[in-house]
């Protein structure tokens, strides 16, 4: 399952049980509907671990940040563990990804 745009793709990688974001995401608010649907399908399947991998995502605007932060809010009180993967190659990630723990304090944010 994937959502593909001219300069991004978001893939549900079932082999890793992760949603992988790549490219540059600067859609307008309505443009994120398909990505939200993909995430909802992913979350609907009960899992021990939910993995969001932003390692190859160069840019994410505030509308997109809202969509991914909502995942953490929706996982509150549920047994699934949230793992967020990032990279120091993209400076925005060290600023924005640690906020996941504000919405789900036991989220594991790894920025390598």
């Amino acid at each position, binding site marked *: 399952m994937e959502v593909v745009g001219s300069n991004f793709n978001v893939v549900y990688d079932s082999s890793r049980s992760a949603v992988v974001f790549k490219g540059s995401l*600067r859609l*307008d608010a309505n443009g994120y509907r398909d990505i939200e649907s993909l995430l909802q399908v992913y979350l609907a399947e009960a899992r021990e671990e939910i993995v969001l991998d932003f390692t190859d995502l160069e840019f994410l605007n*505030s509308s997109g940040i809202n969509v991914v932060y*909502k995942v953490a809010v929706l996982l509150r009180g549920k047994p699934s563990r949230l793992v967020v993967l990032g990279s120091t190659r993209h400076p925005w990630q060290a600023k924005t990804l640690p906020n996941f723990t504000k*919405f789900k304090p036991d989220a594991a944010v790894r920025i390598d």
Partner: protein
Amino acid sequence: MDISIGDYAMPEMDAGIEVRLNQDSLKPRWGGCGQTADFLAAYMQNAKRLTDAESCQSIAFVLNELVENAVKFSAGGDIVVHVSASGGQVLCVVDNRIEPGTSEALKWKLRAIAEGDAASLLISRVEANAASSSSESGLGYLLMMSDYGASLGWNIRGVDGQQEWLSTAARISFEY
């Protein structure tokens, strides 16, 4: 009417650039917002010899949010983007027309942002968004302040007794 909210200081700056965008042409071509932000960030990176990727990406993020906001909410006509720098600061200012009759509600909204704690407002806003079906995030200003340390200010003014204009200023500090 001429009201300033938050940190709307306009210090003397040196290296600068100004571009004029047309809302009608940008709205259907949304990617133009990001292209504008990237171009201006690259220009300032060169003008100020910013060598680190973090500074350039911070300017691009802030400008992208300001331009996207202006394109979404402008009441038409031109959108003017000014970027300038001096010492260790980069100042981004975006001017756009606002819909007549909306300035009062806008003032309250902006005051709440200016007087609140950005990190706390960010959390409550995301929680509210998660419980809502609206696709509008309302996170742009809060992320600029909480994650990028930007200082924000706004000016709302009447022009020619008919039009109302909003200027949004974001100041980011760097160690050059």
